[in-house]
């Protein structure tokens, strides 16, 4: 059993949040300033001003200093030691590691072999996050605390890191607490979600149930526009590209890394989909689907367009100008395009 019951007062912000969960991977979800990072830092023992109880794996930790909590904290900016090579960053916690082969397994799993001699300033955002993850894993933590692990990475690269996180879950069986303000990340990675707003827990439960009830959170999530489909059949990757056939009969190309378990669902973000009114030719996107506009609704300067592709329904977002220019009204024949790395395999 894991739980936290924490409180703190800051100028203009009060934290009073409690949650409990048993699942191996929990997400703290909410908008910026909702208290997610404060909670995860308090769990790590880095917020002495936050009072209350923290239990991880049944053990009470709040009276212990950070170094005795054995938690693998990965902050948003990765916080790699700039004066150490990648190898020496990862080895920082290795002195006490009981398993001598652990460092090797971790660097293999996160594909860090070619980067070991580099310095942090020579790495990309995604590589830095993988190194930070490896460094935390070598500590053999009772739980990984990942604070917005994908936030510092450019959007196209984010989906490439998600499979690594899922591989870590599968291979090292280490529980995770993930801070995120991205519903798709939560669906992809977590089995339990704690939704925060203004320093309070406003909901918690199984991610799909909680996050697909936007009426519970008003405009906080805007999740109705996300496209999630059940996978009926999965073709393992060839040259990194796998194919998933959904229950609705859609054939979708997606990127996976070896070792990643076959996804049960696939998800595509509304804003990652490009729409064309004519048959696109010579495009690099791996996924091109023909459909018909079922509905178009204007909200806050954007138009949410529902497109029927067979029995499947996609929601895409375009600007009002683009919707008018393309004449995206009900019955309009369109083609949807999105890259393979815009398709996220979800547990």
């Amino acid at each position, binding site marked *: 059993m894991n739980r936290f019951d924490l409180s703190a007062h800051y100028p203009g912000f009060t934290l009073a949040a409690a949650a409990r969960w048993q699942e191996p991977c929990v997400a703290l979800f909410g908008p910026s300033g909702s208290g997610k990072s404060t909670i995860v830092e308090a769990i790590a023992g880095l917020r002495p001003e936050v009072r209350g109880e923290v239990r991880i794996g049944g053990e009470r930790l709040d009276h212990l200093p950070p170094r005795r909590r054995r938690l693998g904290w990965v902050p948003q900016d990765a*916080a790699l030691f700039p*004066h150490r090579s990648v190898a020496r960053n990862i080895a*920082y916690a290795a002195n006490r590691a009981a398993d001598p082969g652990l460092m090797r397994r971790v660097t293999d799993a996160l594909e860090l072999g070619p980067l070991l001699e580099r310095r942090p300033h020579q790495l990309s955002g995604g590589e830095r996050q993988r190194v930070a993850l490896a460094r935390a894993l070598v500590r053999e933590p009772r739980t990984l605390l990942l604070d917005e692990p994908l936030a510092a990475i450019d959007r196209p690269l984010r989906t490439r890191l998600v499979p690594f996180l899922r591989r870590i879950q599968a291979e090292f069986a280490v529980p995770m607490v993930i801070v995120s303000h991205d519903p798709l990340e939560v669906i992809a990675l977590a089995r339990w979600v704690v939704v925060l707003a203004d320093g309070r827990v406003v909901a918690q439960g199984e991610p799909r149930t909680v996050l697909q009830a936007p009426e519970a959170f008003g405009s906080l999530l805007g999740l109705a526009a996300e496209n999630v489909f059940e996978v009926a059949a999965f073709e393992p990757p060839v040259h990194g590209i796998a194919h998933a056939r959904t229950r609705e009969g859609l054939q979708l190309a997606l990127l996976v890394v070896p070792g990643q378990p076959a996804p049960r669902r696939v998800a595509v973000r509304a804003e990652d989909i490009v729409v064309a009114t004519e048959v696109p030719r010579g495009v690099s996107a791996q996924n091109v689907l023909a459909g018909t506009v079922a509905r178009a609704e204007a909200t806050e300067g954007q138009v949410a367009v529902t497109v029927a592709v067979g029995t499947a329904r996609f929601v895409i977002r375009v600007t009002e100008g683009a919707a008018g220019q393309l004449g995206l009204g009900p019955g309009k024949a369109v083609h949807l395009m999105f890259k393979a790395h815009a398709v996220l395999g979800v547990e």
Partner: protein
Amino acid sequence: MDAAEVLDITLRTLQVGVLAVAAILVPGIAVGWLLARRAFRGRALLQTVLCLPMVLPPVAVGLLLLHLLARGSVLGDAIERAFGGPILLTPWAAVVAAAVMSFPLVVLGAQQGFLAVPRRLEQVAATLGASAWRVFCTVSLPLAARSIAHGALFAFARALGEFGATTLVAGHVPGRTETLSLAIYARIEQFEDRDALLLSAVSFVLALAITGTAELCLQRRAR
């Protein structure tokens, strides 16, 4: 004035500078870290007192040291008992004067260095199981090293040129406490301008060589 005498004065000056910086380096780093990383009562007062040698006339600091180290004072008597003789008018007094006058520069260099180390890195190290001492040795100190080295370099340069406090506590004993600055002053007083100019030129070359070499080393390290 022959070459042997110039060499003797130069070596003594270097010795005083090296010993002074060696004596204040560790305490300077410790105080710098304390000021950068710990909140405690009297912190502002400590910072002010530490800066005094830079603000006060060196002669005033020398006068204070003279009273502190003189025979009959608590410290002066304790030193005399421990080392079997008074410290005043010895080369060690020159080292003490140079150390006191240079101390703020080491502290400020260290303090600025530690302030520039992101707290987040120290926090990560702690969550990775490192003790406070290990965090200091493996994260804070290496990342502040450049700034500390700069502080130490300025302290060394300050120690080489120290005059006001040194002349009061070490006096001017040729062949024993005479450093470059004391020797230049003595030659001017005796109207030996040629020798004074020669010693000034040695000081100039020495300063240029030391600071230039150190700066080059630090820049190479930064790259």
